């Protein structure tokens, strides 16, 4: 005679006010005990209707909006938008401008991945230490941004046809310092987390994504590479002269949270390598081409994408020869990376769901726009 104990599923709100949702994102999880049996995403708490607002401003006026979408990688967002406009209006960027853009977007990748791995380690329960160490290093990069563009977070530095200002004289020593400081820091992170049995047991085999699933769910960036798909737009579709630089694409083994973590760590190493090369071969010349302020691109459409720290960041612009874009669409990587969230969380525990969410590395400003 056996008697089974029945448990009643109930709904647990993870978010919008929760320490681990990195903003105002909400997972409506139906849990049976600790086990998640259904997960529903609720978003839009930060919706600012940027795509609509952008239709009412000129092409140049729209650049600051892109800062505010993914506020952790504003340089990359500026770059993606400027590339789209340049593609639409067939504008050439001088070599120096391209090199500066590469350096800036790679520095931005370092800063953003610092945040990502720090917050991810925080989600696994490493109480603040990795995030603080990461912030220590990120601070140096933000200082560089401040020197160069005047702002730390929302840089608004890229312009259509180049960058806003040329580099300051103190720029190069600061970047050299970052290049010196980062490898020991990455080694430190590896010692603290990658070699830690608790961290491994928390992240290995958690949120496993098969490469088929990752492709089918339109994932991009470290999520896709963690699953073993070698896809990096800097290699596949080089922009800003990325084809001149030598770097590798890190890919994971089985597509779990740990793979995404080590892929991010290795991407930081590759970024340092790219910055080194770009800084050594920084061409002289103008940093920007002259573009009329009242830019009126010809009728048509353009879809330009870059490899932002979170994945493929695309801008789809439609022009009707007006001064403002007729249609301004952002393809936000962390929004679309969430499509696989349900598949990764259902069946795991609540604690696993938090780790998976941390490994996606969402930025709510970009999800909600």
């Amino acid at each position, binding site marked *: 005679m056996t008697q089974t104990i029945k448990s009643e599923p109930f709904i647990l709100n993870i978010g919008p006010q929760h320490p681990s949702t990195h903003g105002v994102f909400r997972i409506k999880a139906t849990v049976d005990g600790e086990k998640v049996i259904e997960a529903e995403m609720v978003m839009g708490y930060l919706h600012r209707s940027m795509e609509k607002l952008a239709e009412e401003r000129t092409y140049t006026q729209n650049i600051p909006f892109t800062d505010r979408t993914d506020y952790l990688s504003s340089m990359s967002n500026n770059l993606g938008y400027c590339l789209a406009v340049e593609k639409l209006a067939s504008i050439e960027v001088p070599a120096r401008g391209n090199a500066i853009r590469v350096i800036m977007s790679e520095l931005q990748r370092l800063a953003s991945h610092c945040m990502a791995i720090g917050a991810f380690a925080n989600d696994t329960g490493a109480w603040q230490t990795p995030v603080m160490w990461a912030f220590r290093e990120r601070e140096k990069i933000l200082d560089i941004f401040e020197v160069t563009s005047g702002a730390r977070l929302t840089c608004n530095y890229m312009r259509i046809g180049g960058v806003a200002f040329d580099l300051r004289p103190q720029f190069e020593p600061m970047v050299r310092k970052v290049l010196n400081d980062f490898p020991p820091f990455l080694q430190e992170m590896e010692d603290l987390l990658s070699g830690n049995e608790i961290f491994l047991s928390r992240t290995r085999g958690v949120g496993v994504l098969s490469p088929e699933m990752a492709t089918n769910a339109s994932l991009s960036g470290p999520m896709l590479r963690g699953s073993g798909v070698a896809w990096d737009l800097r290699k596949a579709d080089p922009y800003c002269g990325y084809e001149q630089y030598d770097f590798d694409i890190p890919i994971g083994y089985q597509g779990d949270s740990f793979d995404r973590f080590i892929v991010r760590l290795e991407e930081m190493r590759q970024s340092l390598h790219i910055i080194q090369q770009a800084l050594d071969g920084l061409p002289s010349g103008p940093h920007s081409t002259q573009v009329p302020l009242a830019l009126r691109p010809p009728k048509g*459409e353009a879809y330009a994408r870059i490899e932002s720290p979170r994945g493929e960041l695309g801008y789809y612009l439609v022009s009707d020869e007006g001064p403002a874009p007729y249609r301004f669409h952002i393809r936000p990587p962390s929004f679309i990376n969430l499509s696989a969230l349900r598949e990764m969380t259902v069946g795991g525990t609540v604690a696993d769901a938090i780790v998976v969410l941390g490994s996606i590395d969402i930025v709510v400003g970009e999800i909600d726009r």
Partner: protein
Amino acid sequence: MTRELSGPEVAALAEAAVPGSVAKTTETACYLKPEHLVQTLEALKTSPEADLVHLTNLCGVDFWDHMEVVYHIQSFVQNHIALFKVETWDREKPEVPSVTPVFHGAWMQENETYDLYGIKFPGHPNLYRILLWEGYPGWPLRKDFLSMPGGLQPGLGEFAGVAPRQEPPVKVIE
């Protein structure tokens, strides 16, 4: 470099996969017939020649008299990207079949398009307003949804001192 397939190239691929699926072709894009959309994309996804496996971008565009849904689909192995479009001419009840059965990644983006354009996607497992709340009045990204206070025409009218843009083909009902 990722090769951007031109409209006729994409149309040829689509026609080879599902005959009669292409509605029209422009220089860059291939317009598919809505009734053949899912079938065509499914076929192109599995065909090794096209290998369009990764639905990169899906969004809607409003052209006053009709709306379009834009699909950017790319291949990792062939390293090319194709642009498909589907038109819907019904402004009251716009409908485009959902490609979620083919591409799971369309799930979120179709929800977003529904939320902001009001385009229904029959076949979508759970179509809801993902960014705004249920019952939000109107579809914000449609051109007749006015966001500038006092403005009649969406979009920046004109720079100062320049003749205004021509009137939109569809009059806004006050």
